[in-house]
């Protein structure tokens, strides 16, 4: 009966959320669906703080700057501000790198997009032995369940 108690807790959480959210008399801080200046984006490296005032009260913008290290370091930003990502990114954009089973690694599925910073470029079968020995923690975030490790078990049993 464990499922029932849990679903109940979940349902209650959702309902409480809805009730509190709908009844609280706060100003509407709803984000827009689409980022307004789509046309300018992707032309040069994307620094939010070039257009958005760093002192602006709503966000500390520089944390979203798409710097050289953003493609591997967006963990917290994605968790805390996910709706912001979808203002510019299509829903399946994240799935090339974050999905339960995709078979093709991101740099293979999008092979001609050489300007992107994708993990596992080139011969990763050899290099992964070293990377994984040195720091297996990041691997576990993307390959940590039986489905996401499906292609690994042919060698790892």
């Amino acid at each position: 009966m464990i499922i029932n108690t849990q679903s109940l807790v979940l349902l209650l959480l959702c309902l409480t959320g809805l009730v509190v959210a709908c009844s609280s008399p706060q100003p509407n801080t709803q984000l827009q669906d689409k980022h307004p200046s789509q046309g300018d984006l992707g032309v040069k490296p994307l620094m939010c703080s070039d257009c958005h005032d760093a002192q602006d009260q709503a966000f500390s913008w520089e944390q979203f700057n798409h710097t050289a290290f953003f493609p591997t370091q967006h963990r917290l930003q994605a968790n805390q501000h996910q709706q912001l990502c979808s203002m510019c990114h299509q829903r399946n954009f994240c799935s090339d790198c974050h999905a339960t089973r995709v078979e093709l690694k991101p740099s293979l599925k999008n092979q001609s997009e050489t300007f992107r910073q994708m993990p596992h470029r080139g011969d990763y079968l050899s290099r992964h032995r070293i990377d994984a020995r040195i720091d297996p923690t990041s691997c576990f975030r993307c390959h940590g369940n039986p489905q996401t490790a499906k292609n690994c078990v042919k060698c790892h049993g």
Partner: protein
Amino acid sequence: MHTCCGSYSRLLLRTIYAQALVLAIFSFSFAADFNVTSETLFRSFERDTKSGSDELVLPGYEYLKLDVDRITNQSLSFHAYGWVRHDFSDSSYYPEESDGELIYAYLEYAGPKHNQSLRLGRQHVFSGVANDALDGLSFTSDLGDLFSVSAYGGLPVGLADTAGQSGDVLWGGRLAHHYRSFYNIGLSYQKVDNDDSAVTSKVGIDSAFLLPMNVGLYGNSVRNMETEGWAEHVYWLHLLVGNFSIRPYYEMFEYDDYFDAGALSGGPFASLAHSGETLDSLGLDLSWQQSPDWTFGAKAKSYSYEVNETSNFLSLSATWSGDYLTRVGGELGKMKGDAADNDYLLVRLFFYLDHLADKLWVDFVSGDGLYTGYDQEIYGQDYAYFASLGAGKTFIDDALQIKLSADYSKDPYFDNDLRSMLTVTCRFGAGQ
């Protein structure tokens, strides 16, 4: 020849078709916006398989994405994405000739206020300690200006193969407190049951603080509630000084708590959960926007352990950005430590020349080259080369795009491996 086509992928195909049909009906009857993107990939390469050597393998992939917006009104939408693969050759390279996966398929209600959203169906949830696909329900909302909440629950897609999906449950949520840009603190919880035996339960804290001088302090900590130990602490500063983005960080992982996920952590990570290992890392990421055209990056990281031998990694990169997506760049990386079998040198050079239509017949050409040198041989070889060339052209106002690429590699696993890939992307839609 098509007899071993798995019932799984047939089911998937049927699901996608059924959805397409439902959506078509939806979009006609409610005047919704309807968008479809189809990406078809044809690859070719040679492999040694059980039935012979250098056998030609010809897999075709179809990635289908459906978005239906404004069903009945502004707030209701449906989104789906999945792939199927079929090997058109007679090779026995793949365990199953056809395969596929439904990556997401959910109905979303986006409320007009408080950034509310309710999703029902297969979806991927990122929420504090959660980074999982589930078949179920999720909900997010702001609670006034100072709080937001998210909650989710359902069947974990990642466990579908361990004793079936029926007894599995994944649920959790995140409560965040924030004040303007000054701080944002989230507390999250997740529990996964695999057939009634608790597999994981963990609590996480994610935090962001804006300090004076525009310095940001960020971090995550995760505690494993089953082993009752801290699995990770990752903290960093983010400074913007002129055109420099600077990110010093500290990371700590306790393997026995981090990798202990019961039946979840099979395969490659199984031995790590009882290794008694601790990893401490210090690092610095640097990004310098020298001008609108030039970006330079540097990354330095040191790894020290309880059991393993220490290592250090250093990399430098430079990228020139031209018009549109035009980029030319390179990267040099070196891993060096006390154990020689962990040492390697990595060199990458790439180019992507965009918007060539007035000069060439194609819209873009791209190239990529990678060299890795290993201090100790892997299967008798101490280097790996990889090179790739591509080109693409769009037609009919971006509704159709064709890309062709070929790559070559010579490495410890493959000797003179040549592969090619053709990608055809079609976009079509209706409505509005």
